Each structure stands twice: as structure tokens, then as C-alpha cells.
């Protein structure tokens, strides 16, 4: 079981067009099974592009992308993917959206529903099971999208800024909650974020990307004991690490 849950080697990609956009310029990344790995980078550097490759939705120009040893190129469905937009299906009620992935994976409907209903409470969505997506707030929609991703029966989760639309308080709750869930079900998480603090609170490993065309600028091991409380942000060691991460981000900003 030494095989990485997620492995990326020499990934390159340029979006073609009249003005081609070179996005990934030889990106390497590795996530051990069960690890929580964050990906931090400036806006527009190619984080979402990277996740789309791992989701099997985008064939890169060169390089390898493996989920549990299998190439994702031309093969979607190996990981549970949460896009940056919530992309809830407007014609399905909240509960119907939550079970979508489980349903496509062939789980029995009644069981998937029961499982989902149990989690509505924990996601702060209790009472909205039968609402249409258009009746939910932005933050609720995002939590529902996260719930849907959790219910996709895969070992690897690819989360593209899952808390981007949440306020600071809900975000902090979700951090606590995500740590609990992650600790209890041993799945590998690849977590894209802009937020350096968020990356430090949640991760075992944090990667920092350069601006476009992106490469890995730095890799940090984050070894604070778990569970990590919200107060950790005032811990001197945390503050120092945050400064180092920010420096890595800044050091890569174009002059």
C-alpha cells in the first residue's frame, strides 16, 4: 500500500485558442492515502484546471495524473469532484441533489436517501430537504454541493474552494466538522483554497503554486496535533508557519 492516492507528474496544459493560455507548466504533486492535502495559489494560476484533469474531464497536453494508480486521462469517475461552482441541478430538490452521485454509482435509492438525510443536520441544512436549489442561500447551496460530493462513494475527494461562499463563522464550523468527518472515514482529500489559514488548519501537506503558468513553488508538511481547534490560529508556531506560507506565495508573485 505504498501507492499514492493522488499522483501528478510533469503535468502541462495550454488552453488552445486565438490567444492560447499556458496554464500548467510541469506540475508535480503527491498525496498519500488518507492524507489531507491543500493546494494554495494565486487566482487564475490553474488550480481548477488541475482538479479538472484529476476529475477526468480535461485531457492535459503532457504528463501523468493518477488516482489510486489509475490514469484519469479520458477516464472520469475515479474521484469525487466538487467544482468551484455549486452546479446543483435546478430540477432536483435538495435531497435529490445530495444523492445524485450515489445514485449514479448505483447505490440503492432508499439507502442513499437515508444516509443523506442523516447528514442534512450536520451540514446545517435540516428542514431544507424538500427545497428547490433556487430557494437556498449561496452558502447553503455550497454546503449542499459539499454534501453531494461526500456521498459519492470514492476514496479520493477533490474539493475546489468548498468554503468560498461561506461567512467566517460558518467556515470555522465547517473546518471543525470537516476534520471530524475526514478523521472518521479515512478518505484522501485534495483541497483547493485561497486562504492560507484554512490550508494550515486542515492539512497534513500544503502545496503552494506559482502564478500562471503554474508550477509548485513550495511544499509544507503541517504537523500540528489533531484535532486542531480554531484557536490554533493564535499559536506562535502557527503564526510563523503562516508567515512562511505567505512568503512562498508572495515570492512567486510577478515583479
Amino acid at each position, binding site marked *: 500500500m505504498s501507492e499514492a492516492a493522488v499522483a501528478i507528474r510533469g503535468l502541462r496544459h495550454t488552453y488552445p485558442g486565438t490567444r492560447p493560455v499556458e496554464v500548467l507548466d510541469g506540475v508535480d504533486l503527491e498525496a498519500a492515502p488518507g492524507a489531507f492535502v491543500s493546494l494554495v495559489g494565486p487566482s487564475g494560476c490553474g488550480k481548477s484546471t488541475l482538479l479538472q484533469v484529476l476529475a477526468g474531464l480535461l485531457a492535459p497536453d503532457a504528463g501523468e495524473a493518477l488516482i489510486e494508480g489509475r490514469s484519469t486521462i479520458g477516464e472520469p469517475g475515479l474521484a469525487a469532484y466538487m467544482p468551484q461552482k455549486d*452546479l446543483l441541478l435546478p430540477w432536483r430538490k435538495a435531497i435529490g441533489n445530495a444523492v445524485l452521485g450515489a445514485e449514479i454509482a448505483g447505490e440503492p435509492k432508499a439507502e442513499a436517501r437515508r444516509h443523506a438525510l442523516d447528514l442534512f443536520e450536520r451540514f446545517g441544512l435540516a428542514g431544507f430537504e424538500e427545497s428547490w436549489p*433556487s*430557494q437556498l442561500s449561496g452558502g447553503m447551496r455550497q454546503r449542499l454541493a459539499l454534501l453531494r460530493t461526500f456521498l459519492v462513494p470514492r476514496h479520493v475527494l477533490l474539493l475546489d474552494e468548498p468554503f468560498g461562499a461561506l461567512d467566517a463563522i460558518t467556515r470555522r464550523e465547517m473546518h471543525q466538522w470537516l476534520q471530524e468527518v475526514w478523521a472518521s472515514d479515512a478518505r484522501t482529500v485534495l483541497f483547493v483554497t485561497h486562504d492560507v489559514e484554512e490550508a494550515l488548519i486542515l492539512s497534513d501537506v500544503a502545496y503552494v503554486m506559482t502564478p500562471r503558468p503554474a508550477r509548485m513553488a513550495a511544499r509544507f508538511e503541517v504537523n500540528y496535533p489533531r484535532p486542531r481547534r480554531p484557536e490554533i490560529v493564535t499559536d506562535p508556531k502557527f503564526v510563523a508557519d503562516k508567515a512562511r506560507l505567505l512568503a512562498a506565495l508572495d515570492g512567486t508573485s510577478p515583479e
Partner: protein
Amino acid sequence: MAVEVPSLPRTLPAWGLLRRTGAAALEYAPALVLLVALVGLWELMVQVLDTRPYILPAPSAIWDVFAEKGHLFPAHIRTTAVEAIAGIGAAAAGGVILAVLIASIPIVRRVLYPIAVTSQTIPMIVLAPLLVVWLGLGIEPKVTVVGLVCFFPIVVSTVDGLASADREMVALVRSMGASRLEVLRHVLIPSAVPSFFAGLKIAAAYAVIGAIFGEWVGAQSGLGIFIIRSRSAYQTDQIFAAIVVVALLSIALFVAVHLLARVASPWKYANDQGENGS
């Protein structure tokens, strides 16, 4: 003395419907007033100029047709309505299947789409008599005419709807390992529902006229044949009465499709304001 009026709970579906019906009545009031004025003017002109009834009957004479010969209508209405509904139903079923094939198989799109477009250039006036030759004097040629008239708007709108599905939603569902058929079922078809109904509304407006056209060439009963017989007998008042019935039948079909659209896309009316959705 204050009277306790039991207030209707605002969440009751009936309340929204009632409110909307009231709003609709207000909205269409000016049109109604204009219509009444025009009919009044028409009546006045016919009376003053003493127009002969076989040229232009007065509205009151048309009303008399309903009063005196109203019993003639139900059988004809039934025939024409059955033809129209059967035709539009067949067109909807066939249209959706063809639209799905066109949208998902490129070769079908390249082969069938041009043929479907070309088929619309054949004038019904040429086709209808031929259909009678081929299919006889029964209901079949009429249903075929209605089907052919309704088919095109349904196919075109549904293909548009299928093609306008959110690509990112398709990608999301594919990332879950969905097959092409599952993508169709979970994303493409639901996305096309509103467009399909937009096409069906256009078809509904044509369906009754199509049935009448089909009857023109030969039929035992139906509003079309009723009009032809009335014309041969110089019963112009009956023709006008039939026109009124045809209009009402078309409107009824249109409203039915509208209600069906609401039932089939509840998410568009979730906030029940009456103005979202088209």
C-alpha cells in the same frame, strides 16, 4: 359591525392561483373591452347598412346559431378535438425521440435535420389530398396533417433545449462516472423541458387549424367539414359560429399545454410569484 373574515393561508396553492387569476383578469380587461367594442360596432354597421346575412351576418345572428343549432356542434367539436390531440400527441412523442437522436448522434443530425427542415416546405394544401388518397377518409389523414404541422416546432425547440444544457453540469455528472444515457437522463432532458413546452405551445396553436385542414379534403364530421357544408348552403352565420368555436378550441388546447408545462417543471415555479418562468 366588524366581520371576521377567515383569511386564506398564504401558502395554500389555491391562494396563489386565485391571486394570479385575478391579476390575469385585470391584465386582459383592456383586450376584452376592445373586443366588446368591436363586436358592438360590427353589429351596428350590419344593422345600419342592412348587409345581407350571407355576406356578413351580424354578431347577434351568430349568437342565434348557437342558441338554435347549438346541438350540432358537440359531435363536430369532439371529432376535431380528437384529431388535434392525437396529432399533437404523436408529434410530441416522435418529436422528442427525433430531437434526442439529433442531439446525441452527429450522423443523425447531419442526415435528418435537413430533411426535417425540407419537409416544412411542402405545402399542406398539396399534401392533404394526397394523404386522403393514401390513408382514406377516416381519422388517419387528419391526424397525419396535424402531426406534420406540429412536429417541426417541437423538434426544433427540443433540439435547442438539449443543446443549451449547461456544459459544466454535464461535466459534473460525467465526473461521477455517468454514462451518456445517464447524462441524457439527469441533465440534458431536464434542461430541455422548458424549450420542449415552448415548442409544444406553438404546436398547440397550429393543431386545430391543422385538423380543419385535414378535414377540408373530405370527412364525415368535424368543424372543417361543418364549415364546408355551411359554405355550400350559404349559411355564412354558421361559418362564423364555427370560427368562434375553432378559436375557443385552440385557446383551450394552448391553456392545457401551459398548465402541463407548469406541472412538468415545478422547479421553475417554486417561488410561486407567477412571473418567473415563461
